[in-house]
């Protein structure tokens, strides 16, 4: 049904290629799945949790949509919203870039944390956002994550972090690197307090985030076919001077090598997390 509709639109689109205005309108309402190449009506995609109805590809989610999918309606109360981007190295153009991005994305940083309920169970939830400098971890992300961990310890709540990140925030240099140590130290305290931490890896989770809190979940879940790794595929290819095998660094690859507990489709994430919370108490 939808496919017929899309095909019609597709034909029309080809005819209209000269009409720039019409094209813009199309781009606004339709998206192309980069895996199966189907054109999907955006609203249909969002209704399907941003998973391609045709091939099942999990599109990247904004923190806002993710929270909507995971938290019980109206329960999410943000913490650490006042922790904002800093420019410790006085890196040229950085804050300006951040300002433009804030305006464009309507979010303040690459992670949003808060306390919420999942099927009635209270948790601390942190959700990274790839739309903000590729979800990179600078001081603000490190601070917000650490605050989330410390809040979980203080309130004796389970912690759930949804990861998506290109790695450390380059513009904050060594300060970003140290956020890896800071967040990992906080997770250690959470473990000592006997609390549960579920890490959910989504596309992509790489670099400094993989080499810190993302890999430290007591339970690690991943969405299907997410890119997860420490070094980026391009860097590896340049180093070893050969092409990487198909599926390298995918969720399935990590599962096979024993680094994650379970691959869970987006439609089942909330119920799976809820079930874990119920059993672990």
């Amino acid at each position: 049904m939808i496919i017929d509709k899309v095909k019609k639109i597709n034909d029309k689109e080809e005819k209209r290629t000269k009409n720039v205005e019409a094209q813009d309108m199309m781009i606004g309402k339709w998206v192309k799945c980069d895996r199966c190449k189907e054109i999907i009506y955006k609203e249909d995609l969002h209704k399907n949790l941003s998973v391609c109805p045709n091939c099942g590809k999990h599109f990247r989610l904004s923190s806002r949509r993710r929270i909507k999918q995971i938290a019980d309606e109206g329960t999410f109360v943000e913490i650490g919203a006042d922790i904002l981007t800093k420019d410790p190295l006085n890196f040229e153009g950085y804050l300006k870039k951040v300002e433009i991005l804030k305006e464009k994305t309507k979010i303040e940083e690459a992670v949003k944390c808060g306390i919420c309920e999942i099927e009635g169970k209270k948790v601390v939830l942190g959700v990274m956002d790839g739309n903000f400098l590729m979800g990179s971890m600078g001081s603000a992300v490190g601070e917000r994550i650490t605050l989330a961990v410390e809040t979980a310890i203080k309130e004796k709540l389970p912690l759930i972090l949804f990861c998506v990140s290109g790695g450390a925030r380059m513009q904050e240099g060594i300060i970003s690197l140290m956020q890896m140590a800071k967040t990992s130290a906080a997770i250690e305290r959470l473990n000592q307090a006997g609390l549960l931490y579920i890490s959910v890896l989504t596309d992509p989770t790489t670099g400094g985030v993989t080499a810190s809190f993302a890999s430290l979940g007591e339970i690690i879940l991943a969405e299907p076919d997410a890119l997860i790794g420490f070094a980026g595929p391009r860097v590896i290819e340049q180093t070893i001077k050969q092409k990487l095998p198909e599926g390298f660094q995918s969720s399935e690859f990590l599962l096979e090598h024993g680094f994650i507990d379970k691959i869970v489709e987006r439609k089942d994430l909330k119920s799976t997390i809820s079930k874990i919370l119920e059993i672990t108490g």
Partner: protein
Amino acid sequence: MSKKTLSAWDKVLLARSASRPKSSDYIDEIFTNFIDFSGDRCFGDDKSIITGIAMLEDIPVTIVAQQKGKTAKENIERNFGMTNPEGYRKALRQMKQAEKFNRPIITFIDTPGAYPGIGAEERGQGEAIARNLMEMSALKVPIICIVIGEGSSGGALGIGVGDKIVMLENAVYSILSPEGFASILYKDSSKAKEAAENMKITAKDLKKLDIIDEIIKEPSEGIEENFDEVTEEIKNYLIKNLKKLLKMDKQKLLEKRYEKYRKIGQ
């Protein structure tokens, strides 16, 4: 070469130079009775990291040290100081042993970064580094980390969480190599020199940013010329600080370590 003329990029080149002393040189000079131990009891032995036990005067210590080669042949064997997951796991195994026997830990950092290879990813490079960061934050013995040459990215931090972080005057410590940084932010790896200046990677910059605790001076005529002076200074620093840290209540030690990282970027 007078000190004042050294740019950040000059220091990068110095830190990487083949003639610069490697971890094993420091171990030989500073400690006695060093016995090296191998393996992660899981996959293999990573020769980019030397681990073992030794005496620092009358203090038994555990040593974890990234080792670059001095010759092309040794460099291949040592993987140019680029650590694989089994290296981080070997380090952690030794550090856990140190904790068990209440021995302080001294780490020497000298790496272009964690190895970006197929095997490294298959064996969980990210997990190995993450685990070290987490465990090192809570080891109940004093840890002093010394950056002697190149301290690059998570590969360096993977053995770099401690109570005191020390850098040699001409060592560098950065989030990524200046080449990598330039290729990401300036889309041009040839701008590495420019990147190095902006990245704040020298000992002086990092002391100012409160990331490191101490700078060990290097002789102006070059570290190779007066190596004794440098090792003597490191030795004195280690003894003085370990004595203090060993006296500290364990809970307080860990509290202070947590705070040290907690405040970065706050």
